């Protein structure tokens, strides 16, 4: 993306846009950028321009499942991968020793570098305007959204609006018995907008999440701590980058102890969670330290990563994020238990940890393009939909921004299904099953995990993204070059063959069955990698490492991928069966009341989605299908008669 970088600063001639995005977090940034890439006149409205791209919690991007999401966002030409490559200070490929499908790229990020990178990338879009104002309300006209009203009293008109307000909806911070209404520490919550969403009659709920104290790096006794280095060969998130140039740092590792647990145990009643002050449900995979101590009482220690929030010598780098001890205990208790942790005996706490409760909209109020069913033109993305994590927010933001732009332009929605992307798995899970705790991505959520890999996200999605109108020309060209070199390499490997005897003379143990095998088939044998192929066929030496890796992975997973492809064909058949959005489920005979209720709530877009609703039976699905078929016949007859 090399567009004019002055666009956002140029005074706009008009206060009318195609798409307005409310919020400047990770969902908002992706939504605004995606809408702009589609060509929509886009505005991003946020109460504070300087915090666009802020990492409110852990300064890290990626991980298992999450790294997959970042690669997919990047394959669709989004912001997050490129920003992480510019802000990443501790790149690690998680599960490096495991198979390619479950490797998760992750990096610690310099809070400041990352935020700057996001803001720089957004400023490159000439058709994207950044506006500083808190949005207080929506404008609706003729039953659809028509714009937004700011706290300043100004209003802007738009064909579609994307709401990405994170934890700012009726946000309430808990520290011990203290309660502070806030979206993020020191920032006011958005109450008016929350009321507006309640006013639409949307089903809403309350969730909670937590964050640990922030520690002053210089006050930590690093000498006695185990350190974890970055990978020696950091692998970028973005398919556009081939190397990382940012300085890489190490993180510290320390542990809680019985002594620490005793302090926490003695003060459990003071924790906001245990005193009953918090109604919202927190994530099981990111429990507070008081949760860990209580629920896993048999463990005598818990691991803590000491993660720098920035490069040494910078302002961000002065602080350490102690990953593993999020808490809502009162300040004095936090100080007491933290100072009992090895290496933290003399630590200075810059800011105390807290739990935050916030409103979310039941995502079953949304269609799979993330549009609010009850108000055409309104889209929701990110934590407001009950998710947690920058990556989950970014993936939704991209899809919501794209679909808002498509809606404003009169195009059909663009939807990724579960067989195409983790983004599709996530959105389908949300709109079909709702959430009971903040939703986070895991690779085990993806039934087509072997196919949906981080390494092939561009091959799965970039061409799709070009068709959907969300991929720019730079990305498109670069992808086409890569794809043609992969195709060429595959054809070359298929053309090179050898006999079992020839294979054996090269040290590859193949059955002497007289069958010639091509190079791809040979690579499926244990211990045969691309380097081995090069030793047999020196002419392969011109294949690039990236392409060679793709060939190796395809060969390694060959049998499994074939089985999975057959599964996917069956899956798509049900996905292709569209259900009308106005289908009257109560009129369908043979459906239980429970099934009618659930179908009416979710209003599935496809038969496949209907089948994934919790508790749906094959009988119920067949009844829906029968009803549809009957209706189609009747309509046909009526048309003829």
């Amino acid at each position: 993306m090399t567009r004019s970088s002055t666009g956002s600063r140029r005074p706009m001639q008009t206060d009318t846009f195609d798409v307005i995005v409310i919020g400047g977090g990770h969902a908002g940034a992706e939504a605004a950028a995606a809408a702009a890439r589609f060509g929509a006149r886009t505005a991003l409205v946020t109460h504070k321009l300087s915090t666009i791209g802020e990492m409110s919690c852990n300064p890290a991007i990626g991980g298992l499942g999450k790294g997959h999401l970042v690669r997919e966002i990047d394959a669709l030409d989004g912001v997050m991968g490129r920003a992480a490559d510019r802000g990443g200070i501790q790149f690690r490929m998680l599960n490096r020793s495991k198979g390619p499908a479950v490797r998760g790229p992750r990096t610690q990020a310099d809070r400041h570098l990352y935020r700057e990178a996001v803001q720089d990338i957004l400023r490159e879009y000439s058709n994207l305007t950044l506006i500083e104002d808190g949005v207080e309300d929506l404008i609706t006209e003729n039953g659809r959204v028509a714009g937004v009203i700011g706290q300043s009293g100004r209003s802007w008109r738009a064909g579609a609006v994307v709401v990405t307000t994170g934890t700012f909806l009726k946000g309430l911070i808990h520290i011990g018995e203290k309660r502070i209404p806030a979206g993020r520490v020191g920032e006011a919550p958005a109450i008016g907008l929350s009321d507006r969403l309640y006013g639409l009659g949307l089903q809403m709920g309350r969730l909670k999440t937590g964050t640990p104290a922030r520690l002053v790096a210089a006050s930590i006794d690093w000498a006695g701590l185990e350190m974890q280095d970055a990978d020696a060969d950091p692998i970028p998130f973005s398919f556009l980058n081939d190397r990382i140039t940012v300085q890489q740092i190490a993180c510290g590792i320390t542990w809680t102890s019985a002594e620490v647990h005793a302090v926490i145990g003695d003060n459990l009643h003071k924790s906001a969670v245990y005193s009953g002050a918090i109604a919202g449900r927190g994530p099981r995979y990111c429990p507070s330290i008081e949760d860990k101590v209580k629920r896993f009482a048999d463990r005598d220690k818990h691991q803590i990563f000491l993660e720098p929030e920035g490069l040494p010598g910078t302002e961000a780098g002065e602080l350490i994020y102690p990953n593993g001890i999020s808490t809502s205990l009162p300040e004095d208790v936090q100080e007491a238990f933290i100072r009992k942790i090895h290496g933290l005996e003399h630590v200075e706490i810059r800011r105390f940890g807290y739990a935050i409760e916030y409103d979310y909209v039941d995502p079953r109020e949304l269609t799979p393009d993330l549009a609010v069913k009850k108000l055409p033109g309104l889209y929701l993305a990110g934590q407001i939909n009950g998710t947690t994590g920058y990556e989950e927010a970014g993936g939704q933001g991209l899809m919501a921004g794209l679909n808002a732009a498509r809606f404003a332009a009169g195009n059909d929605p663009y939807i990724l299904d579960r067989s195409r992307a983790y983004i599709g798995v996530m959105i389908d899970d949300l709109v079909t099953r709702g959430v009971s705790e903040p939703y986070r991505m895991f690779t085990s959520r993806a039934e087509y995990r072997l196919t949906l890999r981080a390494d092939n996200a561009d091959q799965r999605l970039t061409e799709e993204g070009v068709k959907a109108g969300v991929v720019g020309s730079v990305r498109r060209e670069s992808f086409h070059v890569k794809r043609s070199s992969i195709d060429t390499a595959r054809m070359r490997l298929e053309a090179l063959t050898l006999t079992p005897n020839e294979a054996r003379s090269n040290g590859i143990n193949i059955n002497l069955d007289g069958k010639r095998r091509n190079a791809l088939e040979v690579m499926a044998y244990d211990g045969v990698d691309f380097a081995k192929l090069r030793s047999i066929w020196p002419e392969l030496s011109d294949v690039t490492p990236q392409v060679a890796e793709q060939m190796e992975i395809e060969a390694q997973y060959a049998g499994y991928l074939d089985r999975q492809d057959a599964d996917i064909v069956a899956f798509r058949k049900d996905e292709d069966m569209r259900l009308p959005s106005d289908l009257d489920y109560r009129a369908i005979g043979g459906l239980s009341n429970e099934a009618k209720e659930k179908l009416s709530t979710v209003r599935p877009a496809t038969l496949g989605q209907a089948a994934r609703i919790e508790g749906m039976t094959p009988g119920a699905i067949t009844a829906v299908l029968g009803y549809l078929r009957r209706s189609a016949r009747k309509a046909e007859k009526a048309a003829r008669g």
Partner: protein
Amino acid sequence: MGAPRGPTDTIIALASGSGRAGVAVIRASGPGSAGVIRALTRANQPYPGDSSGPTGSEGALDPADVSRETPQPQSLPQPRKAAVRKLFDEAGGFLDEALILWMPGPLSYTGEDVAELHVHGGPAVVEAVIGAALRTRLCRIAEPGEFTRRAFDSGRMDLTQAEAIGDLIDAETEGQRRQAGRLYQGEAARVFEGWRGLLVSAMAALEASIDFPDEADIPGEINLSALEPIETLAVDLEQALGDAGRLASVREGFRIAILGPPNAGKSSLMNRLARREAAIVSPIAGTTRDVVEVRLVLSGYPVWVADTAGLREASDAIEAEGIRRALARAEEADLRIWVSDVSDNPDASRETSSTFREGDLRVLNKADLLETSPSSAGAEDVFVVSARSGAGMDPLERRLAEIVRERLETDEAPLVTRARHRELVEEALAAVERALEGARIGIGAELVSEDLRLAARSLGRITGSIDAEDLLDRIFSQFCVGK
């Protein structure tokens, strides 16, 4: 829901009700239907004139004869015209003689190529034919409702049929309910649930190591001890498939054992039931030394009636062995008929035996030698007959037919469901074996887990589904996650 495994694959299932009728209809749908007919009829000589061919002589039904015929390609019957063909398994063994209807798509029930095989009713034949068809690998067992579903999908379902769809579904779920409620009630259902639990546990350990690599609480590498219960599971699955085979042999016939003291007229009774001299009858007590069996058809089901040695203190080793076999047969039998000589002991029905079970029948034989009705005549399931003259046999035969129908109808789950279960358990076993082998040779945790997922999915199609939430629940309850 059970998603079809491919829009263009071929499915097969018993289309008629299970068991009871003289004719059972097996239906195949999909592009492989023609191949299935060709494969099953391949050893057969074509009949002259497909639609009106002779049904073949008795002699041709002898498997020994037909298996010597040279296999040759068999043309398809003319579309929409009935054709009689013999069916063979892949070894050339004779299966049955069937009326075949070949209905190429799109003018068929499902809109796809459809073949209907009208075979002789009864579980054994149907099981054998479907089994042979599956082994061609051209087709798989249909999911419940899948024919109907394909008919919908292709737009073949007409308005009237579509109106009735609710009833159809009910019938199918009723079948599933009965299957879950009877055959798989209790022990088997618990076993399936137990298996599923083992898979979820093992997957949780693997998935935790995949999704939470930086967690101190979770072992980083593939934990082979997590797979130990899966080794046991593989053995259990194999065992279950073996048991399924024994169940199938039970289905070959309903077994009735005739028991009683020597010279009560058991052999005469059997000959009367068989309407031929199958057993040697003599006035000498102990004439029947071994078990003699005849095959009958009652209520459309095959029935084996076994005549056994008279139960008494044996006078020699051969007779003792005969009595041992008689008792063993009594034990295995689905129904026992206790015969006594009414003239010797009019109240012999009071005799008890360790093998007498509720529902067994008592027959007081040699009524022709008695002048007045015995005191127990008219009691439920007590029959006074004369095997020699045939007097009193009608009520007994009617009652036998009734019992056979009742027992087979209520105890038999729909055949297709059972064959489907076997296929799913086989799939699960194959996946479990791939997972174990993979773990042994050190393939990645994600591949081991993939096979366990496929195994769980196969079992899940029997008992209910498993999804990611099951797994995550397990992970979060076992491990302290959250670095």
